């Protein structure tokens, strides 16, 4: 509701007149946290529903007056730079340069992974995990035990830092995949929070994008076997 009218009435009135429609944040993009089952407020995104089904409130065929679908800037929250840079691009007449991916996210930001630029990537290479939280900042990759979705989440979180300082993964915080339509993954059901979901107790249920479990296990076995001594020690030391 805004100023006495349901938000959907505002959208009904404004969207057909808008030159360009931009959805900012997960709620506007996919329905966001309020849409987690049982979705008590019937939340949906502008052009996608939770899980990534195209449709949403405006419907799959909506295009704005400029002939564009809704431009999605997801994230919970969306980074201020992503928002301002896309709006500057649109205002500067660069809409034609704005290639969108399957979820209508600007490719320039959402092609690389959260893992791209992560300071822990060398530990990922040799499949070394930190023994526990609280030592997460000192060593290791959070993908194996703590549910980090950095290898399969598209965001520039480690290219464009947060508050110009850091990122979740740099601070020992597993990526929760908040720029993807499945966030929060596992619907926050029992056992899904900050824990890597596994098959048969060993194989990560969700593999790094583009890998099958056979090649993942082969690579992991080889990596562990050749892991150098330093990869088992603290790197981010006092």
């Amino acid at each position: 509701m805004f100023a006495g009218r349901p938000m959907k009435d505002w959208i009904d009135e404004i969207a057909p007149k808008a030159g360009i429609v931009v959805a900012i944040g997960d709620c506007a993009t996919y329905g966001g946290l309020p849409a987690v089952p049982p979705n008590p407020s019937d939340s949906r995104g502008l052009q996608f529903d939770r899980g990534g089904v195209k449709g949403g409130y405006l419907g799959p065929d909506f295009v704005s007056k400029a002939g564009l679908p809704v431009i999605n800037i997801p994230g919970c929250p969306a980074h201020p730079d992503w928002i301002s840079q896309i709006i500057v691009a649109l205002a500067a007449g660069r809409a034609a340069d704005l290639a969108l991916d399957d979820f209508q996210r600007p490719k320039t930001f959402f092609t690389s992974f959260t893992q791209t630029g992560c300071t822990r990537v060398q530990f990922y290479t040799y499949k070394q995990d930190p023994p526990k939280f609280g030592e997460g900042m000192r060593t290791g990759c959070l993908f194996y035990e703590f549910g980090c979705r950095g290898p399969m989440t598209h965001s520039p979180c480690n290219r464009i830092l947060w508050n110009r300082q850091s990122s979740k993964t740099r601070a020992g915080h597993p990526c929760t995949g908040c720029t993807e339509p499945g966030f929060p993954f596992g619907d926050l059901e029992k056992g899904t929070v900050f824990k890597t979901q596994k098959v048969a107790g060993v194989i990560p249920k969700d593999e790094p994008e583009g890998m099958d479990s056979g090649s993942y296990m082969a690579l992991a076995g080889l990596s562990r076997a050749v892991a150098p001594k330093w990869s088992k020690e603290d790197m981010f030391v006092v």
Partner: protein
Amino acid sequence: MTTMELNVSPLGQVEGDLDVKVAITDGVVTDAWTEAAMFRGFEIILKGKDPQAGLIMTPRICGICGGSHLYKACYALDTAWATYVPPNATRVRNIAQACETLQSIPRWFYAIMCPDMVAAQYSSFPLYEEVAKRFAPYVGTSYQTGVTLSQHPVEIYAIFGGQWPHSSFMIPGGVMSAPTLSDVTRSISILENWARQWLEGQWLGCSVDRWLENKTWSDVQAWMEENESQANSDLALFIKWALQIGLDKYGQGYGNYLATGTFLNPDLYTNPTVDGRNAALQARSGIYANGQYFDFDQMRVTEDVTHSFYQGTGSRHPWEGVTEPIDPAEGAKQGKYTWAKAPRYDVPDLGYVPLEVGPLARQMMAAKPDAADFQDADPFIRNIIDELGPSVLTRVLARVHEAPKYYKNVQNWLKELDLHGEFYVKPGEPDSGKGFGSTEAARGALSDWIVLEGGKIANYQVITPTAWNIGPRDGNSNVGPMEQSFVGTPIENPDFPVELGNVAHSFDSCLVCTVHAYDGKTGKELAKFRMGGG
């Protein structure tokens, strides 16, 4: 006698979710109804989920208090799981909580409080030109620097938590991060740079220590005239302006307060329990009602839904709380008018009463007798309340007085951090238990009650400061604290009631903070007014 009703929407500037209806008789507000206008149902979503789901979910309730939500959600689990929290982890949590509030104070003052204070209606007052030059939205010279520099304290949050807002880095048993030397030195540099530029340079016109020497209202008056730098500070200009336009004359409210306190002592709360919490708080909890102080006891808190869009009437303790929304149109027929529940506190011998939360409440508790050595004991704002009474001015002074205090706190915790110590001890995860976690968000007491059964959340209830303040009438027809504080406000121009904005903004109610809010269409509209430079 002329009576009119006035609808003001939206009143909250952060989000457009607070509508207020007031009745005006002979130019003075005689009654008020605050209507929270949005429903999201987070408590319903959390039911049946992973015990730690609140660490992901509740920080996202609010874009500006996310760190405070995380702080209390984590302590709710720490108490339910009976964790051990190493002192260093508590220090990091406190640094993060305080930095979030340091960000909020200037951002609130310039972006929320100022716009209605510089309304054209006040242009005939002598200081108007200077006030507008400095405080006008977007273009004011102090507005620009104050808002821009307010981003720096949360850079420290990001160093420890990865990002601000919406980090979940506080977890039962500690924090996820283990800082390095440069994390601490960077934090010190950012904090000191911000303090020199804004807090001392622009806001106080003097050192933090000089400001903290003020203990009474007459001290403040002397401080304003002490030298040119202090006289020209943004704070002194605000005080002179507030007295000129009468912000000391209205917005009183009930004068009864509740604080749940915050900043757990790192060494005294290594084994967090609900019962041990009061004694470990650096910023103390408490109740002040009808002239008397009482200790805070979470068992005396209830939420009343008689006038809220939920099933039924009456009140419940949050551990037994239910959230069953109903169609607002149906609710309206039963006299319900908002998505906010009405939190109440059972004061000994007084019964269930509405209490104001926020900086005024916190600073009243700072003057509560019998502080332990490590606890904040500060009679300053209490003296101003005694001298001037509560008002828009006093509420603003209480809030901004926290900036120098919290700055000193952060300095100390950074100094005390033992980088070689533990930051996390893995807890057991018992299947069942009850927990209570609380803190003071910039806007006031913020608490979670959690019940775990079978390794899942059986019940989760959040009471936000905004619910305490903007909550509606209860079953005994007691109006909410903010509703009460509108009463008696003089409205000079019903077509442009800036006075209402000044009262509402002094509470800094951030409606996105309410778990349940909706825009109820009520009463006939005689005028509509958009707050904040309109």
